[in-house]
């Protein structure tokens, strides 16, 4: 693996590992909508899982438009953040989990958020997998690197 790829992958893994929450952005008819979500991720960074009540706005949004974005950052809410904080914008697609893969993702999710066991088990909760297309990592204030997971077209071009 090339050195830079390794470096960026390392930065992403440590960033995701250090954070419990992500901001999920969905949209309805062009109106963006952001929500704070507990998340878990697979070690290959290809999938992120979140859970939400089925009656929520974000869930409704996801049914209509599966393309999403997540923001995960390690800011400390001090001025140091400008040089020291990192943020990853995740671009991906929400998918419902196949029954066969659900146990693996449940384990992953509950390892990070054991207190959400009851919430996850509820029939009114939707457990959603986000298949990541790429990450856009920002560090050193304005250095921006894209880390591609799949070979699909860049959604921005």
């Amino acid at each position, binding site marked *: 693996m*090339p050195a*830079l*790829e390794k470096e*960026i*992958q390392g930065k992403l893994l440590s960033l995701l590992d250090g954070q419990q929450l992500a901001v999920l952005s969905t949209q309805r008819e062009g109106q963006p909508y952001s929500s704070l979500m507990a998340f878990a991720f697979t070690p290959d960074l290809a999938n992120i899982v979140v859970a939400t009540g089925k009656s929520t706005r974000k869930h409704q949004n996801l049914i209509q438009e599966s393309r999403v974005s997540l923001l995960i950052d390690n800011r400390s809410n001090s*001025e*140091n953040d*400008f*040089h*020291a904080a990192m943020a990853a914008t995740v671009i991906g697609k929400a998918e419902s989990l196949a029954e066969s893969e659900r146990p693996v993702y449940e384990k992953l999710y509950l390892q990070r958020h054991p207190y959400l066991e009851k919430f996850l088990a509820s029939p009114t909760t939707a457990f959603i997998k986000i298949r990541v297309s790429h990450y*856009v990592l920002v560090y*050193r*204030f*304005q*250095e*921006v*690197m*894209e*880390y*591609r*997971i799949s*070979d699909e*077209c*860049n959604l921005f*071009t």
Partner: protein
Amino acid sequence: MNVIYLPDTQTAADELCARIGGKGQSLFKLYNAGLPVPLPVCIGTTGYELFVEENHLREKINLLLHRKDIKEMRWEEIWDISLRTQNLFQSGMYPEELHRAIREVVCRQFDGKPVVIRSSAPGEDGNTLSFAGLHESYVNVSGVDEILKKIKKVWASLWSDRAILYRQELGLEVASSTIAVVIQEFIEGESSGVVFSRSPLDATQLIIEAVYGLNQGLVNGDIEPDRWILDRNRQKPTQHRPPADRGYRFIRSASGGAQRQEIRPDLQALPPIQEEQVESVAALAIELEKFFATAQDVEWTIGNGRLYILQSRPVTAGIGEGEQSDKRSWYLSLNRSYDNLMQLWQSISGELLPAMDQDSSYLAGMVLDDLTDVALAEELKRRNAIHERWTSVYWNDFIPFAHGVRLFGEMYNDVVEPADPFEFVTLLTGQEMLSTDRNELLLACARMVCADDSLRSALEAGRVEEIDNEEFQQKLGQLKSRFSMAGPGTGEEESANALLAAMILQYGSLDLDPDIRQQTLQENVRRLESRFLGKAGEKLPVAPEELLEMARASYRLRDDDNIHIGRVAQEVERAKSHARRRIQSRGLSVTPESSVEELSQMLCGHVPLTTGVQRALAKNYDQAENRVRARQLQGQAASRGIARGNARVIAPGGELKDFKKGEVLVIDSIDPTMTFLAPLAAGIIERRGGMLIHGAIIAREYGIPCVTGVVNATSLINTGDFLTVDGYLGIVTVQRTQIS
């Protein structure tokens, strides 16, 4: 909160050391013990912290320091950070209360007398490394406003390029680092010097060095001192070594600071101190060693017939000493004094450049066809040795002189206090440089081509030799010989012609009017020049016109030296190319990578073990990395403006002739021999960082946006990527039109 400290302070020793630093504390101890030191007044570290807080400097410095990994920064980029930091301090405002407190103590204690302002960093004493020379000191500062200004400069010097270079060793962190300031009355010494109570080399010896006047010249190495070696036990000199001559001394300057002055001939014959003074200096050093219970390195001066201690610190190893493994010591040696730069300038313009040109002209006049194989092999080695010799002159003399620009920059910023710390660069641009001359010549050729269709078709068909227009051929000849425009290291006639033809055709589509460009530049330069000279008047210890002239020579040389040395390199290439042709004609295989040694061996009938072919295969330039793509890269804003265009990435030794007008040039480092690409480029991106590198200089000359110091630029950007070059903020945005 206590900010100002006087020697009668009741603060506990440990806390005092943290508040006023080791130097301040030692001076307090000496003063309180009745030893001969001028009254020290300290502005505690709280002063620095209040100022930093008031002006939000912490995060501003952090942003500068963390733009990229310090290990990836060149010395010049570190200097840039330091210059920008100094500018932040210089333009910062004092909190009102701090301003009042300093004014009040300065007026009360010094009453209009000139003072000395020094740094005192906490933790200095406990270190095995000496911090000497990392931070700034100012002598002979008069007037409370000037003192307040210089205090800011001492604070800013916590972030001097030297300190940043040794940041790790010093544990220099924005959040925790701080600095105190010592103010003392300025003693106008008739003789001054340093004394080591115990020689670092021989524990039985005590060493004294002395010069006439102030000790500035001695400390910065401009003036060679008289040196006495004494037997420590008897405190009697065993040896006196006078310098080669005692021509100069430093005295106080009417405009503040110190200035060099010639010494009267009758004094030149005499040492600056007599034997009894040598003994009193020795006795003082021994007394100080006892007082501090460790060997001391003392700066002293004799003024009004009285011996004073200026500074006393433990004898330690200097920072940067004994480190051969990295280049930092060499970097530090670039920090030359004004006098040293003036001497360098004389030797470069009077001796070195003419001698180098003489060598290259002599080599260019030699007919290589007449040489036997063995003689050609010898000639190759000889040329290589000549090139190596000039390369070493380049590192030892040309580069240090090119840093005269830096000295000028600092003095300009002091005098003018501009909002943009790099404004001084504009004042140095718009001069006739060899590379702009060459580009004008290319443009003249292009104009001839536009007016003459037969010339155009000959160029397009690659029939350059067949052109029978004498004037045109003469210009081409000049481009090849005077500006070594023979392509990157090929030395081949055909490739030189192909490159010239491609460039002249491209230049034909430029709507550049050299006269208008020069006019605008000259107007700007004149405006800045009169502002600088008007303000410099009494403020500088050196003649401002002379300083400006030296800086301009230094700036020019930064571009021209590579062209001069390029001519010598081209002569090595010419002989190599000749050798390759001879070897190939015998059916043996060689490549442009084959070394002089290999070619010489082959000419003499030996087949070398490793050939250039193998080495060429082993060469592995960074390949674009798969999963990772750069979206936005940070560098240094080196020339203002914004540009958009397709990238043309040029790998080392790559084809320059493919470059098209309107493309963004992405390159590891622009050599001045290839800056003819600049007028064609929409923007320039360079991996090598700095405001004064060749790419940045030529970009500013032509007003092209330029970002330098972009890590991995040539591997993260691909030819054809659509780029936005932000020359205001130093940002490159990469947009791909096609995904593979």
